């Protein structure tokens, strides 16, 4: 954690620390304590985003594009100018924001119901166009806000309120690996999947989020970080069980790692645009 500060980190009302050095303080970009359920990963992800924006000194020129789901409350807890989107449309809204204000830092904060179901077209095309914004994609494999229904990201066999016998791949299909899919697109400069399962992974998640915003600062294309997260209430687990499940099961189905970092020459090996493609371009 590089945000070592001299300021007093004591919370209001508590006795001031008389001596010593603050080694961790709540980022100034975080406002109220969150209203998320115990064990929910959103609070961790909010903090990581706030820390990164603060370390990069971007808070005063960042615009958050909200989405629908539990993620909609992000603007209540992040001290940022924010605009709300209809369900699934955050990537289109962010396109409009960033095209008009390319000098601002723009990011969407979306859950998996929002991004991977109703917003699939918008995220795919924003990525394909190489829009210069960042997407923080919080994947907990379920529709949390509406009461724990099956999402496109729900694991095979997982019980939800709308797959009460467990997700049956014969009738309900397979999980959608969105970040791998987006990694195939030339407009994507950075794509990574991370997890908040334990402090080690949280640290790596922060590095990925920071890298994504740095890529945006370079202005070359789209960046996305998928954060594997928890929904203890939706999963029917205690917070501790949910974190164990995230590490032992979910991370097995959704491998973490950096899929694309074009400035560092990390990208899946794909057929490159061939001579025919180039000749078409040159023809005009």
């Amino acid at each position, binding site marked *: 954690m590089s945000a070592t500060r001299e300021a007093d980190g004591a919370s209001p009302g508590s006795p001031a620390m008389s001596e010593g050095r603050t080694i961790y303080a709540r980022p100034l970009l975080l406002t109220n304590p969150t209203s998320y359920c115990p064990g929910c990963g959103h609070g961790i992800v909010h903090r990581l985003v706030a820390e990164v924006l603060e370390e990069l000194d971007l808070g005063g020129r960042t615009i958050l594009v909200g989405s629908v789901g539990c993620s909609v409350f992000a603007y209540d807890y992040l001290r940022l100018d*924010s*605009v709300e989107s209809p369900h699934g449309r955050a990537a289109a809204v962010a396109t409009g924001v960033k095209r008009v*204000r390319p000098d601002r830092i723009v990011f969407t904060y979306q859950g998996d119901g929002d991004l991977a179901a109703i917003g699939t077209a918008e995220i795919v095309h924003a990525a394909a166009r190489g829009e210069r914004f960042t997407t923080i994609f919080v994947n907990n494999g379920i529709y949390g806000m509406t009461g724990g229904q099956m999402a496109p990201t729900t694991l095979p066999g997982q019980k939800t309120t709308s797959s009460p016998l467990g997700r049956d791949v014969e009738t309900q299909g397979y999980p959608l690996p969105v970040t791998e899919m987006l990694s195939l697109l030339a407009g994507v400069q950075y794509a990574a999947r991370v997890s908040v399962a334990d402090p080690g992974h949280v640290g790596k998640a922060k590095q990925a989020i920071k890298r994504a915003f740095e890529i945006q600062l370079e202005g070359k294309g789209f960046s996305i970080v998928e954060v594997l997260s928890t929904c203890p209430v939706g999963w029917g687990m205690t917070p501790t069980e949910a974190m164990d499940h995230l590490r032992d099961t979910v991370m097995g189905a959704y491998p973490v790692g950096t899929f694309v970092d074009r400035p560092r020459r990390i990208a899946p090996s794909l057929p490159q645009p061939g001579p025919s493609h180039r000749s078409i371009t040159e023809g005009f």
Partner: protein
Amino acid sequence: MTVLDRPGADARPRVLASPPGTGGEAFSLQDRVLMKGNEAIAEAAIAAGCDAYFGYPITPQAELLEWMARRMPEEGRTYVQAESELAAINMALGAAAVGARVLVSSSSPGISLMAEAMSYMAGSRLPMVLVNVMRGGPGLGSIGASQGDYLQATKGHGHGDYRVPVLAPSSIAEAIDLVGDAFTLAERYRTPVILLADGILGQAMEPVKPTFRALERPPRPDWVLDGAAGREPRVIKSLHLRPEDLERADLALQATYAEITENEQRWAGESLDGADVVMVAYGTAARIARTAVERARAAGLMAGLFRPITLWPFPAAALCEAARDARAVLAVEMSAGQLVEDVRLAIEGAVPVFHHGRMGGMVPTPDEVVDAVRRAWSTSDGGAS
């Protein structure tokens, strides 16, 4: 004249030195150019200071998108061809949130897809101008000109307690003027505004004066997002989970709508003096009704035309006044009987109200409208009691 060239291979000025077949001063087309309605609306928006345009191809408005595809980059402004109408209007939502003057255009099926964001933009108090070049429906319908989206434009589109001003030009020259007015209304009242045209207005070419009006830019409003440096963050949203909060926001919207209704009604009256039958028509239907007025009067039927220019707010009191001494009122529309609902509400039974409409891209002829005037005249008893 580059500005008035059409994009693509057919890019040449079409200034008419003199109109074919005439030459009289009264009909001089000098200093005028022929433009398609779609092109003229696009160029008028650019002159009005449109910062960003988002669209998706659909007939009969595709020329508007094509015009913007060439002209907006020339002007150094934002143009995106979106992956869908859903995406196009949500890009507009984002652009409006950071203070851009935004235009979106589509035609009927595309407007249906945009309904969701219209509701969000109304609830979030974001200005935007949306052009609907109407085609026949329902469903995929036809690509012919229609006015079948009257109810959608004036009462419908998205969910919730909101309204949207609707401006209806009846000529390309008027469309050019109304584009600027639409932006002014949108910004003054922080609301989406619909410019309601139809396939004929969009596709036909008419001589227009290439004098497009520039709009002043008001000082940067205090709700625009630009990063919360040195001030409290701003949140543009329509979500208010506490019913008390949402009702307060809804009441504020209703107060704005009351103000719009009070201040922004527009209409035009033609040949209303001594009119026994007052026709009510807008857009292309009003052009036909105008010809029908002439033919009816030539045949001894005293017809007149009341043309609403704002469809919402509907100029109800003005219509009531215009029809006070009439024997009958006749709504003429290219739809099944949509406009006539507002006409009946305005007249409140004071005068018998009749309806003549065609659908599906069919356009009423002046002679069939004259027949409808005659039927209205003879069916009503002449008493305005």
